[in-house]
């Protein structure tokens, strides 16, 4: 019971202190809106193409929302030593980091539904397979958050967290099949796509929204799950190695 009180309060504190702040809420609204508009205008097609763009915009919204927030907040707390306060408390590191990442995961999931709500006004979403869609959203949010954790532990300054995040994020936009099918990429780039977690999340989203998946949901979600476990384990290993000297 004691550990869950700690878990819930860490999560609630992060939500209140970081995620529910007006600048972050506006980021969560404006960012997906800008991406949707940009790709919609660029495609030059009609409203019917919105559904093919939706998976990519959803995935990007989650990726940028979670990695930005977590990498910055954890780096900031490490820098001002408030993270130490939690390391001194009798909470297992695994539970502590799940609590810290929980807020970012929820923020990512909320971000994902901003473009969905927007698209609901201009396109018919009745054909969307919501179970697969929600599963993909949650898994992408978890994987992206754990990627953010990995980045946060690897750097020591807040600005480094942003720069290092972009090192991972921008290639993902173009290599993960969000807006261009992986098959259309140059052959030498295609293997890179398959070592990025977003590829599998985006595939499920394409399948859920317009039956455009290239792999089965089970394979996609299993690989995404493996990425989640691997990134979380790498983050914890790095914390133990670098922060608990």
């Amino acid at each position, binding site marked *: *019971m*004691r*550990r869950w*009180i*700690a878990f*819930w*309060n*860490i999560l609630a*504190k992060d939500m209140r*202190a970081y995620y529910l702040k007006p600048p972050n809420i506006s980021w969560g609204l404006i960012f997906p809106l800008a991406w949707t508009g940009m790709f919609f205008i660029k495609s030059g097609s009609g409203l019917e193409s919105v559904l093919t763009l939706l998976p990519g915009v959803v995935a990007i919204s989650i990726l940028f929302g979670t990695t930005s927030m977590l990498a910055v907040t954890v780096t900031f*707390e490490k820098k*001002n*030593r*408030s993270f*130490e*306060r*939690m*390391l*001194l*408390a*009798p*909470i*297992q590191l695994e539970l502590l980091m799940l609590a810290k990442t929980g807020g970012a995961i929820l923020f990512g999931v909320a971000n994902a539904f901003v473009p969905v709500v927007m698209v609901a006004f201009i396109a018919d979403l009745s054909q969307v397979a919501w179970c697969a869609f929600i599963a993909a959203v949650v898994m992408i949010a978890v994987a992206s958050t754990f990627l953010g954790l990995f980045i946060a532990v690897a750097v020591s300054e807040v600005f480094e967290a942003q720069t290092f995040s972009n090192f991972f994020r921008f290639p993902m936009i173009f290599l993960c099949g969000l807006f261009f099918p992986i098959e259309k990429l140059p052959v030498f780039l295609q293997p890179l796509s398959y070592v990025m977690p977003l590829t599998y999340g985006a595939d499920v989203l394409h399948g859920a929204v317009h039956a455009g998946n290239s792999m089965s949901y089970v394979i996609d979600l299993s690989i995404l799950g493996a990425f989640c476990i691997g990134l979380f384990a790498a983050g914890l290993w790095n914390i133990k190695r670098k922060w*608990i*000297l």
Partner: protein
Amino acid sequence: MQNNVKLSEGAVVPVIEVAELCKRFGDVTAVANVSFEVRRSEIFGFLGPNGAGKTTTINMLTGLARPNAGTIRIGGIDCTDHPKAAQYLIGVVPDESNLYPELTGFENLCFCAALYGMGKAERQAQARELLDTFGLVQAAERRFGGYSKGMKRKLTIAAGIIHNPPILFLDEPTTGIDVASSRQIRQFLADLHRTGTTIFLTTHYIEEAERLCNRIAFIVAGRIVRIDTVAKLVQPIQEEHVMLLSLSAAGPELYEELTSAFPQLDFTFISDGQICVESSEPINVSPLVRLLEDCGVEVTEARKIRPSLEDVFVRITGIEADVMLKEKEKA
């Protein structure tokens, strides 16, 4: 205040036992074979210059660093490899405030209490009590980031004891804060000690350690060079006799004159016009004054000095206390 977690009874029961503790960072040995015990309900001082290994030792005891060798037992729990097991027993006040600048004072305390699994009503009551104790009620709803240095320090101490730990680690609790806040903190620590809390204190203020601590360990270059009660540490030096003479003038030629006339006395020229005279026997000041007047030097003041823990520290470590303090404040 009552401690939630009880330690075994007995005045001399060690609650912290450290044996052969070592910590290396690459080629640098920060802590080398450190062994000591802290007894239940005592204030144990840990004194040393910057880089001596004080904070590294505290970090190992509290679970923020892993020792390369040695054992740590806190409250009878072996926490060498499993520091989490003893973290319910300890409170930690680091040398720099580590609370959340974006939260209010009250929110910070409630959050810290929640980290120890305290229920909502209990943590709010405890937070209010501590805000009252430290005179921070008026600032309870203000963001911690806007607090003065003294207020930040007091709230950090309050956060360290919010779960009523029977053992408290305090790293430099009064460094760099105003006199009134320092006095309030010292008074609070004395009160806390009376309730039975064991306190592990590091400080650069040797006078503070002398006033508060039951026993003191001196650590230099990662090694403990002396551990004893304040009375026993000071005893040998108190048997010596020290006088401070203020003179109208003093130069090297005067030193020659004095040492040849009084070979049983040790003379140290402290600054222009001041000489420290030391002896194992009581010092008869009249012949000294006569000789100085014969040399044309007027003695404006002659003062008997009571040797303090600071003198013991300087003698053992070879480091002047004011140098150590300046280094710390610069850092």
